[in-house]
């Protein structure tokens, strides 16, 4: 029998709060963090964004990092959410250095710093050399590892908007194959002018707050943030005296193999990813209590994801919501931030709403506007889909200590 992979801690930071308490409170109040640009230095002010409500200096202070250190906002948010996850899991510095593999997804990496001084960087003088060192994705993860006092191993998945989900999939597989004891898996992504202009060049940004699955949806809002989960076997958690707060029951990764920036009409990649996650978790569609959809708010994604969900669930759909109107699309980090939302939902019984949704679209599922669930939320699917058709789905469970629930 395969060992159970439990989650012994998690951390989250996004436009709706720093840490789990602020996050749950905002989800319950239905309060969005999407607003006009305030912290990001950019000439592109036409679009609302989901910014973490703090300057880099304020984040450094929260993360316990010297004010003159050259470190990207991506790394800073990663450090803050990873610390929260490690504290809940009760991991000591020695646990981290000797037993923990850090898998942190990102796509933007240190672009927030590079874009501010790129012309100086490529000029003949020796300015901004520290920025060159922290520009790339791998350096972002290394910086996080150093800031928390070191870990056993690091790596960085970079599959655009499914990076966090793929970090968890690799982490779980490393544990199942006996190659890792404890894995801190998640992702971090900060807003950058590069990223914002990139999405603008694709013409998929909404000038208003995004409305996933709404007939009048116009596109997505970009957001930022980070999230981490601590994964280990139930046996490992028990041996350390750590209390599981959730379980990773299954996961799937498939490629839509359709187009670099568009999803197929029938949602083949999404369908395969969800089907694999259910199958790995020995779970039937009827057992799913809630789906946190990828639901970016673009006409294409939401229709394609709806088609895939209908193929998996038929006409008996569970409660579904996209939480992108709370946070904006946090791209690489979205799978980790939304995993945290799912774990908070399982803990509290509160399903976060698809806020702002008003008009039904025949091509889309009808999402829930949120509220307390009369039944406990035992099994939850969390979708994360990326450009290039990198589609992943995670099957999360409320931790149940009942031995009868052993698979």
């Amino acid at each position, binding site marked *: 029998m395969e060992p159970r992979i439990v989650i012994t801690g998690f951390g989250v930071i996004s436009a709706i709060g720093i840490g789990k308490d602020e996050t749950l409170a905002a989800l319950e109040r239905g309060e969005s963090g999407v607003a006009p640009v305030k912290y990001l230095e950019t000439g592109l002010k036409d679009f609302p964004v989901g910014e973490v409500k703090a300057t880099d200096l304020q984040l450094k202070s929260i993360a316990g990092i010297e004010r003159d250190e050259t470190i990207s906002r991506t790394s800073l948010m990663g450090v803050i959410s990873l610390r929260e996850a490690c504290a809940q899991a009760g991991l000591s510095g020695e646990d981290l250095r000797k037993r923990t593999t850090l898998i942190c997804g990102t796509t933007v990496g240190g672009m927030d710093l590079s874009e501010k001084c790129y012309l100086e960087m490529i000029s003949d003088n020796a300015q901004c050399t520290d920025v060159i060192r922290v520009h790339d994705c791998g350096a972002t993860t290394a910086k996080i590892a150093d800031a928390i006092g070191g870990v056993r191993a690091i790596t960085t998945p970079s599959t655009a908007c499914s990076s966090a989900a793929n970090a968890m999939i690799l982490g779980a597989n490393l544990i199942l194959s006996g190659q890792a004891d404890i894995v801190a898996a998640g992702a971090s992504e900060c807003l950058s002018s590069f990223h914002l202009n990139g999405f603008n060049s694709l013409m998929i940004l909404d000038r208003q707050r995004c409305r996933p699955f709404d007939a009048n949806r116009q596109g997505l809002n970009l957001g930022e943030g980070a999230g981490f989960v601590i994964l280990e076997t139930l046996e490992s958690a028990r041996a350390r005296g750590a209390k599981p707060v959730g379980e990773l029951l299954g996961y799937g990764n498939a490629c839509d*193999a359709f187009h670099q920036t568009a999803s197929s009409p029938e949602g083949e990649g999404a369908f395969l990813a969800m089907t694999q996650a259910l199958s790995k978790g020995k779970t039937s569609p009827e057992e799913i209590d809630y789906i946190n959809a990828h639901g970016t708010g673009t006409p294409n994604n939401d229709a394609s994801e709806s088609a895939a969900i209908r193929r998996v669930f038929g006409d008996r759909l569970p409660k579904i919501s996209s939480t992108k109107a709370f946070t904006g699309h946090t791209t690489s980090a979205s799978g980790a931030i939304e995993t945290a939302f799912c774990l908070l939902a399982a803990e509290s019984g509160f399903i976060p709403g698809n806020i702002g949704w008003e008009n039904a679209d025949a091509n889309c599922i009808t999402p829930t506007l949120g509220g307390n669930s009369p039944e406990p939320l035992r099994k939850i699917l969390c979708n994360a889909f990326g450009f290039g058709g990198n589609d992943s789905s995670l099957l999360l469970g409320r931790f149940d200590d009942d031995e009868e629930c052993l698979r």
Partner: protein
Amino acid sequence: MMKSVYVNSAISIEAEPDYRKYFSPMEARRMGRLMKMAVAASSEALEAAGMESTDAIITGTGLGSVECTENFLLGLCGVEGYDMKPTNFMQSTHNTISSLIAIRNKNHGYNSTYAQRGISFESALLDGYTRILLGDSSSVMAGCYEQLTPRYTALLSKIGKDGSVFRDCAVSTIISDREEGAICRLAGVKLLYKPGSVDIPEDALVLECREEASARVFCQAVEKIRKGARKVVIKNDAPGGEVAITILEK
């Protein structure tokens, strides 16, 4: 019971090949050099392994398409002659290589990408190795594609690294659970970060990565086994503190 993992082919493209073998001139115009080299390496690796496709496509690339990233950045900075083209943005994301290979082959299998400086290749290899061990994939294409630009090379020389963190390469390897026709066994891939010391098996020929991309050294190691070596260990002591140990056995 974990499965054994075999190396069925390992191909390094050293010079730009005649691309007409792989795609039409029309297709070629939409691809940067990095993408073209990646498609060529992956096609050659499949052919050498005698396979039509693999269950998984996994890429390691520390920087992805630097050329596209630079072009977009220059456009963002308002430099004349550059603009923020959607194709440059799209191809600046690292996963564009793995997904392009999947789109070309209509491959709906597992698909992922790693960007971890000098150990991007081993990260991809470790993911694939683990999937085969667990029986999640029967065959995996793991590749490493890196194409530095003169501009990025100049940046790296400013910090005294001479490009040693990111080195040009276009390598594809096919690993699988199929012993028949395999060149050798992949006996382990281990990643470490700033370890005090590293244990290396004593009975092995050790290849250390210094000036070369580790993915190319991997191809050399496979060749050494083909020529009679029994056990080869690749020790990649990357400049940023990452260490990767790869073990190949006859």
